[in-house]
């Protein structure tokens, strides 16, 4: 995202994976928005960054794999997603631990302020 790109919808994911259905609903909303040609951004913050872990195996608890669902994003024109750098550090997550498709871009305080400044709408999960 360049400094001046207008964002139609910013979706913020704050929940840890598989504790409720919010990941699936956030992903659905992102894909629905993209299919209407809206410029949509997904931002993972706080415990939400744990949704980006590689090697998820939720089948035993009857959940759909979040990492696999995110992997389809580039087919819908969403090439990258954003994560809060501070939250990644809090949970000790580094590039080898997290998914690589779509690209995960970590945002510092300035990056977070910038993405909020350019978002016309925000929905939080």
């Amino acid at each position, binding site marked *: 995202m360049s400094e001046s790109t207008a964002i139609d919808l910013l979706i913020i994911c704050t929940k840890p994976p598989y504790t409720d259905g919010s990941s699936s609903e956030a992903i659905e*909303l992102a894909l629905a928005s993209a299919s209407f040609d809206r410029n949509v951004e997904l931002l993972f913050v706080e415990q939400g960054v744990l949704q980006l872990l590689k090697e998820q195996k939720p089948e035993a608890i009857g959940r759909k794999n979040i990492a696999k669902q995110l992997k389809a994003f580039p087919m819908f024109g969403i090439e990258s997603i954003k994560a809060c750098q501070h939250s990644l550090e809090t949970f000790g997550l580094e590039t080898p631990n997290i998914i690589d498709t779509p690209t995960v871009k970590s945002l510092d305080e300035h990056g977070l302020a910038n993405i909020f400044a350019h978002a016309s709408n925000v929905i939080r999960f």
Partner: protein
Amino acid sequence: MKYTLVVLGAPFTSNAGRSALNFAEALARSEHEIFRVFFYQDGIHQTSAIHSTPQGEDALTQAWQTFCQSNKIDAVTCIAAAARRGIVNDAERARHNLEHSNLAGEYDLSGLGQLVEAMAVSDRTVTFGV
């Protein structure tokens, strides 16, 4: 200004519905316009026809129905969020082979496109809950 309200919390377990309804009633009394009310996530429970509120408590779902009816509000319940959580209208009841339907008559059951459109068209979209 054109407003869309997105209700994300269930009645009783959250105050999202009451706050949203108070805001909607204030909008209806003002020069502003409500483009759409969209019930989403756990907010879809606001649109159940089978709530029974104990005496002395806030009869919120009935209040929403009265408000939507008397102000001719475009009120939409998210079809996917509702099906997952056990709210269907008669068409969905038949489609999914269920025994009963329970969506109150004031609400349309429709997809996320209605939310995407509402956000695009409205000057302000306000979420309640979460």
